[in-house]
């Protein structure tokens, strides 16, 4: 008795059989593609902005800017190594990034 009511409930609540909607699959794939492209655009914009800031700083500043930088590099070579490692890793990992 109890089993049959359980079965009735399962039959009633079961998802209705519907064919797969290819339009939905296409929409998901195009959304994924769109997000990937916008992320790439954002990455490129960020890199270009950083480059622009560096260039402007170098062009507008006089030679004095290099003195504290040289001192820093000489005093903390490990920081420079860490920075270089991060830069190399980013350059290698960026193309393999999924989205």
């Amino acid at each position, binding site marked *: 008795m109890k089993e049959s*009511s359980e*079965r*009735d*409930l*399962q*039959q*009633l*609540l*079961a*998802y*209705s*059989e*519907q064919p*797969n*909607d290819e339009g*939905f*699959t296409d*929409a*998901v*794939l195009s*959304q*994924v593609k769109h*997000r990937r492209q916008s992320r790439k655009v954002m990455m490129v914009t960020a890199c270009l902005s950083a480059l622009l800031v560096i260039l402007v700083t170098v062009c507008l500043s006089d030679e004095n800017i290099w003195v504290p930088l040289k001192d820093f590099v000489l005093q903390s070579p490990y920081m420079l190594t860490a920075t270089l490692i991060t830069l190399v890793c980013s350059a290698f990992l960026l193309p393999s990034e*999924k*989205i």
Partner: protein
Amino acid sequence: MIDDKTLIARVVLADDHHAFATLVRRYQQAIRQFLRRLTSGDQALADDLAQEVFTTLYHKIASYRSEASFGTWLHSIAYRTFLNEKRKSHYANEVPYSDAIIEPMVASNAEKDLLVESLINRLGLAERTCITLAYSAGMSHQEIMEITQLPLGTVKSNINRGKKKVETWLHANQITRSVS
């Protein structure tokens, strides 16, 4: 048929879009219908959320660990996506149920869907989620716990309470026989 793990590996390692499309085709009905039940039958919102779920899946697929089945993991993404949407202030889709929808004549799939939605809408969110996962998606209590992050006792009591309510309404409207 290629199994889920192979498809996931292809997506993660080779960024294989065909493998991803196969996963979408395989799980779209379950996820869309699960979300449709959660959104009180709002097909458009359910489909939007389902798209979001699969997009999130693509982003997070590398973090899938096979401790839970892929279907369970995907349902938990869908459930969290729904909860996030529900938290938004503009979400006001809780349609009050209407007795007029329930009629003791259920012939087509569409009519059955309407009947089930009107029944499910009468349940609270936790009951609705647990009942849908248990009876529609055919999941075990353990899987429902993983998806909803509720303790086992709460899952069981939600299912029992929801089941009693549904059975009472079905009995009151003498629907069970005409459905099955």
